[in-house]
């Protein structure tokens, strides 16, 4: 069948050329983001629970001084293996404003598991005033919003890791704006955030050595989880769905062959 082969060839060529052009067309950023290998990647990917706990510790001890995580509640931490008692304790470690009570007064109380993560600043203006005019972004979706675009793009975790480990001495000819910091992982290489991590900034409960790279990795993974807490159930469900669909398709194909046998 000449027509059929031509059709197939045409499509193959089209798909091929388009793929080449698309790969070629992925826009170049002025920062290079190094792709790391993460345990959550792939069809059978999984978060390392110990790493998530370490990452949360980095967020709690370091990041949370300036960055909010408005979309997460303390109760969500149970999803990554903290016990109910631990979550209560973590929540109670902050004091939060509640009210009004029956007398119409606002009052302070210890945090509850159902509370959102305690925000360091009451509003945007306060956050800017406390940070030299810059606004520390909310970190709930940071891993998702900073991921690369399109096919084979880098993960949000790659980007976060790149920024957190990207603080270097600026080259001699680099003009650094007053109050800014040089960072190889950030677009324009100038970032308002001063290097947040330093060797031993946190003391890990599991004894892992707290190097800058280790802390950056751990918090990148924690923020990846925080960006999509249902990530693991998504790819687990995917596996089941795929197996079902493949079986369904094979049966449908067998039925098609049988029914059409008399026509061919």
């Amino acid at each position, binding site marked *: 069948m000449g*027509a*059929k082969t*031509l059709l197939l060839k*045409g499509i193959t*060529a*089209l798909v091929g*050329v*388009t793929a*080449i*052009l*698309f*790969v*070629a*067309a992925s*826009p*170049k950023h002025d920062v290079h983001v190094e792709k790391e290998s993460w345990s959550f990647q792939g*069809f059978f990917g999984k978060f390392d629970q110990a790493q998530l706990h370490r990452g949360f510790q980095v967020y709690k001890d370091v990041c949370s001084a300036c960055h909010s995580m408005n*979309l997460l509640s303390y109760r*969500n931490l149970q999803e990554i293996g903290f016990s109910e008692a631990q979550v209560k304790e973590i929540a109670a470690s902050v004091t939060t404003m509640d009210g009004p009570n029956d007398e119409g007064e606002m009052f302070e109380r210890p945090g509850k598991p159902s509370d959102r993560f305690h925000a360091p600043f009451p509003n945007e203006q306060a956050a800017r005033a406390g940070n030299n005019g810059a606004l520390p972004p909310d970190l*709930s*979706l940071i891993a*998702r*919003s*900073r*991921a*690369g*675009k*399109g*096919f084979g*793009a880098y993960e*949000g975790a790659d980007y976060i890791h790149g920024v957190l480990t990207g603080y270097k001495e600026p080259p001699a000819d680099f003009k650094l704006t007053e109050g800014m910091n040089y960072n190889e992982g950030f677009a324009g290489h100038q970032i308002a955030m001063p290097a947040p991590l330093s060797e031993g900034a946190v003391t890990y409960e599991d004894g892992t050595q707290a190097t800058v790279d280790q802390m950056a990795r751990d918090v990148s993974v924690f923020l990846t989880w925080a*960006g*999509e*807490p*249902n990530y693991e159930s*998504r*790819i687990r*469900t*995917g*596996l089941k*769905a*795929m197996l079902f*669909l*493949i079986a*369904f*398709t*094979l049966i*449908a*194909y067998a*039925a*098609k062959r049988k*029914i*059409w046998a008399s*026509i061919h």
Partner: protein
Amino acid sequence: MSANFKNPVIRWIDHRLPVFSYLHHEANEYPTPKNLSYWWNFGSLAGFMLVVMMASGIFLAMQYTPHVDMAFNSVERIMRDVNYGWLMRYIHMNGASMFFVVVYIHMFRGLYFGSYKAPRELLWQIGVVILLLMMATAFMGYVLPWGQMSFWGATVITNLFSALPVVGKHIVTLLWGGFSVDNPTLNRFFSLHYLLPFVLLGVVVLHVIALHRFGSNNPIGIDTKGPQDTIPFHPYYTVKDMFGLGVFMIFYAYWIFYAPVTLGDPDNFIPANPLSTPQHIVPEWYFLPFYAILRSIPDKLLGVLAMFASILVLLVLPWLDRSPVRSGRYRPAFKWFFWMLAFDCAILTICGKNPPDWIWSPLSLSIAPDEGQAGISIIAMGQLATTYYFGYFLVILPLLSIFEKALPVPLSISRPVLGGGGSHAAIASAPAKNLAKTMEKL
């Protein structure tokens, strides 16, 4: 023509309300050419996608809040706290892409095999209306999560209407419900996003009625000549569609479960901020070819008109391509121009995706900001591709209708290998007759 149903209840109902007879006639007996290839699976897949989108959308609407202060967080709540909300949302947002994949393949199928030709002109035109409705619905749906790309996409696209003389400004105010994209815009987009799919469904019914008038076209492109050329739709094509559906669902599920945001823009995970414009405002992939056509014309009004014309030209396609041979299989020259059109649309997609002043260098196969490297700018590439796009419909097809010498067309579907005979010769010589007519006029 009423069928003999065994079940007495069905017989009782059918006698008074012949829906079962109707279904039996239109879905069971419905005679279908026996030689349909897998390219004919995409019509039913498009219908399937419409149902999936409506079903998942109704569940999403139960949890979504159309208010600028709450929309973004309500979507995140669906993702995080609603049971299987993440699944519903991924089905819906990737479903939009899958719907367009299926419909675009369905359209190219029609273009190659001449499914738009007599007597199926209205069927084709109704299809174009479906495409327009789909585009409007998809655009408004993309605005609803109220992320950065939602907001700025809405701003850019609605602003296009301001290019129209006299009425432009008023149309934009009407679309916005005010003087900028704001809460009233979000509210009306949500309302219309819920309404339009039902309108779409109605037009799909018309599409199917028009289809069933003459039945499906087929890869050979000749009319069925009798019962020996057709088979009943059920079970032959129901089972074939079922298999096609399985293959398609595997493809669809891959996106849902393993790459749910790859087709989207990471910027849409940032809440809409009218004070901060994203670096590149890019529409979803299925709008990129049209976006490229819009940008390739320096004048705003003409660009907008060209963008609309690129779809509206399809409405008159049946009268631009006068070749009596439907199927591209028997049109040796047409074939090449057709595949070039498909390639052209891929180029337009790439042009729409990249900033217009960037350069594509054939040597390094890269697209990058202009730093004096050898190559062609995205805008120039888009202009060439736009020229070919319109050239294909307005120049190439009419000329091919006159000058192309078609290959012999089979006599019937049942005997496709037999050449010879009078009818195919008559068809093949038709272009020559057309030419003669044209010469007479001159």
